[in-house]
């Protein structure tokens, strides 16, 4: 079966260190962290990655009040992506547009807020809001985009823990190839810092980052790393079949070359480097490539003591035959872990490498952990590559879900 070629034609994003691709990229190359500290309900101040986009750019105040934070993030990213793509949705058949957004979780924020709300009224449930159910259904982020843009095609989320950002793009490619839609708005989104439960859960797991300087709290591969910085964010792409993109003279950021998704089936939280390596290898094969063809690997590493080592083991194993290793970097060191948005957002930060050949580093590595010292790691300062024709993007999640997505430089 011959697959349609699938390309990226527009990008909209909000990250803790940038509200557009240009701003995000500039800060990644200049070593600018977006991590700050916030008050977490019941828990005091903790490092977190928070976005500063203007929700009222594309929503009315009432829509912001009724909707969710992640709905607002999704609308901002979707609108920015459409504007960037040059598409005029008003001339399109909106029933042929799909909205596929990866989420790590959804509903925690809104449920916690309501439980807190009724705690102010002696837990009398007559004070529980009627907005609770539309806010907490799992399709909420995509549904809010559908409402905002008047898109009547399929709009739903893909729950895949922290592998979800890649999954949005993968699912979009599959639906475009099946002919289910003609255009997809796809990526990943997260509002996780609004929920104390995720902070408390990671704290109880001894996996929540702490540091006197929040900008140094997320430090994958560093000897002193001590956990995850929870962050919000979003990144949504316009994805099209190549022939459609070319027919309208679209700008093409890159082509989806291949992907793979698998499961560890070994533990609720601990990663499995053997399955991760298998996921990477199968994605490379799916792209019709060999390990020699991969120029840049963006790691999932979340700054946990164990997880970073496991991923380094997997990457070292896959690329051990290379005489010159691919460049390897990490984005969470700048923005924390944006959960469902991570895969999509981290990919976006690297796509400009196709044009400028610059590789942004992983920052905050004061003392490289010897167990993370793998060939090709770009540490603290950007480097210029001789060639960037392919980017391999890893995103892994709890319950052992792994996703690898490979984007290649577009060549007609």
């Amino acid at each position, binding site marked *: 079966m011959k697959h349609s070629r699938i390309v990226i034609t527009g990008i909209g994003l909000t990250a803790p260190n940038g509200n557009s691709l240009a701003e995000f990229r500039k800060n990644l190359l200049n070593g600018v962290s977006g991590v700050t500290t916030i008050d977490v309900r019941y828990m005091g101040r903790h490092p977190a990655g928070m976005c500063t986009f203007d929700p009222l750019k594309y929503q*009315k*105040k*009432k829509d912001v*009040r*009724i909707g969710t934070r992640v709905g607002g993030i999704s609308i901002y990213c979707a609108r920015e992506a459409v504007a960037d793509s040059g598409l005029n949705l008003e001339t399109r058949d909106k029933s042929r547009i799909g909205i596929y957004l990866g989420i790590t979780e959804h509903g925690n924020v809104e449920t916690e807020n309501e439980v807190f709300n009724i705690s102010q*009224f002696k837990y009398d449930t*007559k*004070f529980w*809001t*009627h*907005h609770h159910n539309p806010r907490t259904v799992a399709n909420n982020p995509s549904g809010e985009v559908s409402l905002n843009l008047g898109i009547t095609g399929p709009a739903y989320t893909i729950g895949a823990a922290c592998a979800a950002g890649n999954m949005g793009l993968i699912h979009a490619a599959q639906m475009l190839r099946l002919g289910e839609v003609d255009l997809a708005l796809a990526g990943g989104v997260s509002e996780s810092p609004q929920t104390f439960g995720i902070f408390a859960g990671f704290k109880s797991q001894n996996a929540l980052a702490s540091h006197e300087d929040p900008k140094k709290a997320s430090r994958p591969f560093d000897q002193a790393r001590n956990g995850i910085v929870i962050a919000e964010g979003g990144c949504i792409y316009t994805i099209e079949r190549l022939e459609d993109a070319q027919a309208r003279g679209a700008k093409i950021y890159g082509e989806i070359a291949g992907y793979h998704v698998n499961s560890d089936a070994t533990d609720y939280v601990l990663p499995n480097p053997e399955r991760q390596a298998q996921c990477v290898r199968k994605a490379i094969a799916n792209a019709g490539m060999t390990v020699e063809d991969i120029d840049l690997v963006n790691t999932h590493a979340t700054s946990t003591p164990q997880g970073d080592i496991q991923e380094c083991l997997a990457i070292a194993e896959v690329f051990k035959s290379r005489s010159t290793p691919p460049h390897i970097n990490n984005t969470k060191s700048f923005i924390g872990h944006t959960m469902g948005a991570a895969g999509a957002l981290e990919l976006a930060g690297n796509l400009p490498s196709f044009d400028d050949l610059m590789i942004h580093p992983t920052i905050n590595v004061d003392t490289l952990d010897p167990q993370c010292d793998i060939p090709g790691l770009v540490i603290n300062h950007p480097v210029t590559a001789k060639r960037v024709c392919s980017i391999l993007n890893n995103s892994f999640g709890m319950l052992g879900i792994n996703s690898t997505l490979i984007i290649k430089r577009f060549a007609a």
Partner: protein
Amino acid sequence: MTKDNCKKLVIDIISDIAPDEDLSAIKPEIRLRDQLQLDSMDFLDIVMELRKRHGIEVPEADYGQLASLESCAEYLTPKFGTAKA
């Protein structure tokens, strides 16, 4: 509680429920839905805010009493005197 004070409290609630609306020229006798962008969910919000802020219960059978600012004042003003807050 006077009817005018009651109207002010209702407008305070509506300003939070419908923050994009200009409430400076609301006509008291005209149905709120005919002059503002309010839907059924917004009316449930108004009912909830009356409950939260003022301890006033509006049974579903009486929702029609909240149709206009004038009817709100007529219906709610006596309740302010008896609310448990």
